[in-house]
């Protein structure tokens, strides 16, 4: 591993100034991805800026505008917070799946998002909960709907010197349920061969789905939404047949590759199974 400089500023302003300097500067919001990438020469850095000491990036709260997750908040904290407050079941589930307990304690949801792996476990949950990425750089701030945040495997729309400041998720209505499931050959310490997050809002008087959000992991260069499946489900009375049809439509949004973790055909099949299972869980949660 080539040498690099390391800074751990305690204010957002000084972090942004450091990151704006010339050279290849990388933020670290846990380091469970970036340290490994540096060690194995998959990424380079002249300067690593540790964000873990900046108070506003470590803040997690729920208020009138929704759930605010600072970009350096660990997966464990997000899991504990969302488990206690409720309303974001898929996020609570996915933050407990990332890597291992050690990685969840150190790694952040913001880091998982910015690492932009197509397989990232927290991203489908954030997408179905309609997260908005609030970014900051020395030249100002931006708000980007998370679905527009990814540019390719390992790539985001963040510009040089720009970091993710926080993720904001609107509070779902009471008649909403969400779930995330991924498929891995083992039971832990693994990367999703395929993952599906599903969210449905159901009108209890009619049993009609008023909102459906389905997001897929590991089946495209970026995490994707299954729009056709969502559109079909919205306005439909949800039952086993509707779930099967939705699952078939979700497969159509998957454009997977064949690699060492699974064939394209198998991944499509997994999308069908996981969509069916997550929607079934949502229904159980609404009952």
């Amino acid at each position, binding site marked *: *591993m*080539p*040498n690099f400089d390391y800074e751990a500023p305690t204010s957002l302003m000084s972090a942004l100034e450091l990151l704006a300097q010339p050279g290849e500067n990388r933020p670290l919001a846990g380091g469970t991805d970036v340290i490994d990438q540096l060690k*194995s020469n998959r990424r380079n850095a002249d300067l690593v800026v540790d964000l873990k000491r900046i108070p506003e990036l470590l803040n997690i709260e729920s208020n009138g505008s929704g759930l605010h997750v600072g970009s350096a908040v660990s997966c464990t904290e997000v899991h504990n917070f969302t488990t206690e407050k409720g309303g974001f079941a898929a996020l609570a589930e996915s933050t407990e799946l990332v890597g291992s307990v050690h990685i969840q304690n150190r790694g952040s949801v913001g880091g998982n998002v910015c690492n932009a792996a197509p397989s990232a476990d927290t991203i489908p949950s954030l997408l179905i909960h309609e997260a908005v990425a609030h970014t900051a750089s020395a030249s100002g701030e931006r708000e980007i709907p998370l679905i527009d945040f990814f540019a390719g495997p390992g790539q985001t729309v963040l510009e040089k010197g720009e970091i993710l400041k926080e993720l904001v998720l609107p509070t779902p209505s009471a008649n909403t349920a969400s779930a995330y499931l991924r*498929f891995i*050959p*083992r*039971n*832990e*310490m*693994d*990367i999703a061969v395929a993952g599906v997050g599903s969210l449905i809002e159901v009108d209890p008087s009619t049993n009609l789905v008023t909102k459906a959000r389905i997001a897929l992991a590991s089946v495209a260069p970026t995490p994707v939404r299954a729009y056709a499946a969502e559109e079909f489900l919205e306005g439909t009375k949800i039952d086993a047949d509707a779930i099967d049809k939705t699952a078939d439509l979700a497969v159509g949004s998957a454009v997977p590759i064949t*690699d*060492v*973790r*699974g*064939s394209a055909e*198998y991944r499509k*099949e*997994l999308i069908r*199974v996981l969509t069916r299972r997550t929607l079934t869980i949502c229904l159980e949660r609404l009952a």
Partner: protein
Amino acid sequence: MTTEIRSNADGLEFKQFGKRYRKVDGDDKVTGQAVFGADFTAKGSLFAKIVRSPYAHARIVSIDTSEAEAMAGVEAVCTAADFPSDVAGDVDTGEVEIGIQFLANLIMGRRKALFEGHPVAAVAATDIHIAEEAARRIKIEWEVLPAVTDPIEAMAQDAPLLHEGLIATSLSGSADAPSNIAGHMEGGKGDVEKGFEESDVVVERTYRTALVHQGYLEPEAETVHWHADGRIEVWANSQGSFPLRQNMSNLLGVDVSKIKVMPLEVGGAFGAKNTPRVTPIAAILSQKAGKPVKIVLTREEVLKATGPASGAVVTVKMGATKDGVLKAAQSRLVFGAGGFPGSPVLRGMQTIFACYQPENSKVDAYDVVTNAPRVAAYRAPGATVATFCGESTLDDLAREIGMDPIDFRIKNASKTGDSNVDDEEYARIGIVQMLETVKASDEYNRPVKASKNGFPVGRGVGIGWWPCGIEISSARIMVNHDGGVDVTIGAVDLHGVRTGTAQVAAETLGIEPEEVYVHTADTEGIPYTGNAAGSRITRTLSQAVYKAGVSVIDQMKAKMAVRFGVDAEFVEYEGGNFYARDNQDSKVSFKEAGSLVTKNGSNIVATASNDPGMRAANGYAMAVADVEVDPDTGKVQLTDFTLFQDVGKCVNPTQVESQMQGGAVQGIGWALSEEYVYDDQGLMRNASFLDYRMPTALDLPMINTVILEEPADDGAFGIRGVGEPPIVPPPAAIGNAISDAVGVRMGRLPMSPERVFEAMKDSSK
């Protein structure tokens, strides 16, 4: 933990055996105090990085090391040109053998790289980062050649040829032209064609397994100091200090007595660390730099370029009559050896039908070189693959003739005095007893627990055999001035050797294990001791300790005779006390006597080795596996698992259990998730523990163990080998359980979710 011991040990009762005596090296290991290879750094040490082939098969056109050599901090660079080109003599790499010239070329590639990661140069520098940068600056011009990693493809006439001079040898002589087939071995008895004709049912299947790695926790990590006066010191991470010294002597052309090997704690080996890989490289760099050189491999290097277990293609054909007589068994085993000849296919041939006595048998075994890392021993090398193939076929045959699979096994089981396909006659074995124990067990008879998910469930069994090794082990017992006892051994302690030896010494000397301190010596401290391999150490070392202990007691009797004022023959030693036969009141404890007789500079010391003629005590283990199978994804979850093993005589149940559990878990990983994945260029696509999937604790149920005792014929205590047999039956039992659950016969390892999914899809067509 549901361990129990079911003994048939004929009154072989020992006070110190069967006790959960505390592991003597345990505290240091769990508190991080123990010194492993990577923990040790010699004063003034340099750090080395190996330059490896990025291609699976390529000719080295030129190597330019000048830019690396010119870097500040670089103190030595070596290539094959710095190693002796003519090497001779024997090398000892444990249960998987290799010729010395091949070993030399494996350690440092000469002219050609035969697998991805094959070393071709190395750099030693003042720190590892400089060494890594210098390694990148070594310029190598390659001529890339077509590569072949599949053993069947490698056998084809038009396959890329790895070694231009490799001529296959077999019973019928040598082949006419070079090929990738290094050897063809045959075995068996009778006439299999006649046997199949006499059969009511014949089942034939072909199986395919991938390369797998031992997955030891500690990557290879060694330090070597080649002194200016010609002495070589090695701080070793090896399974055998003496074999390593012998190998280094022959590989480097240095007298044995100039090499001193000092064993450090070893973080797992399972057969792989019998083969010297980095030690000779560190030695050459140290010789050039005049300083100690330390090499620690990365996990990627370990996976790509140490010695995994063979991938294989095995066809098995078995025939039986309706009433369950195994008329004929035939197999063709093809094992990939990696870049140089010497796969354990012969072991596969020995083990595939070893538990049974087919009336007619025929086995053909092919050793084939491929552009993959040269395989090494891995816990019962060859047996796990062979047993998976044999037991899967046998299970289908039993189902087809409508017989209970265990009854069918009992009816055809090998017994003491029977012989195997290699005509080796079995010493005392209890395979029938094991099968009957399992058949009567709750683990086999209780209903398989229903799946909480509503998935199909099933149960399978498999039995596996392993001969276990022998070789020489040495021990010295010395009584100290305070009457305490030092036992010095030459065996590297991979799994509880010091603890077990303390128990054996205490048993022999009539004292308590706490009064015995066991030391692992370097190569100057004790006579020759072979590799800690082949499940052989406790069996052989216990006899050495016993012989030395008997001598110690005799010496003490002679000295106590003087004190008692009687002839030595009238001194008794019983219940931990010496006394004159005619005077019960003269009792002196071992400790007191030890102190008395060593007072005036007089030593009590005895050194012994086991008898060279000692026979291998065959080992065998049987697994009962329960699974549930996700019908939508093909994922197999093991829900219950019990391993039965005959250990002859159990010294320490805690250590025996952990060997059984560890071996079983490695077998489970082999069954369900572990494999090397190669692309069409012969490059490994999953060289990390992320994608080379070993089971984690969350993937496994409790591994239950049942220890059986059918004592071995010879040796001091009836002890059999324990370490290897547990890995042998798990894939077979799990494959049979999957078949029971969802009705598909898995012909490939690992039985990964996608493969099971595909197999279910195919069978429903």
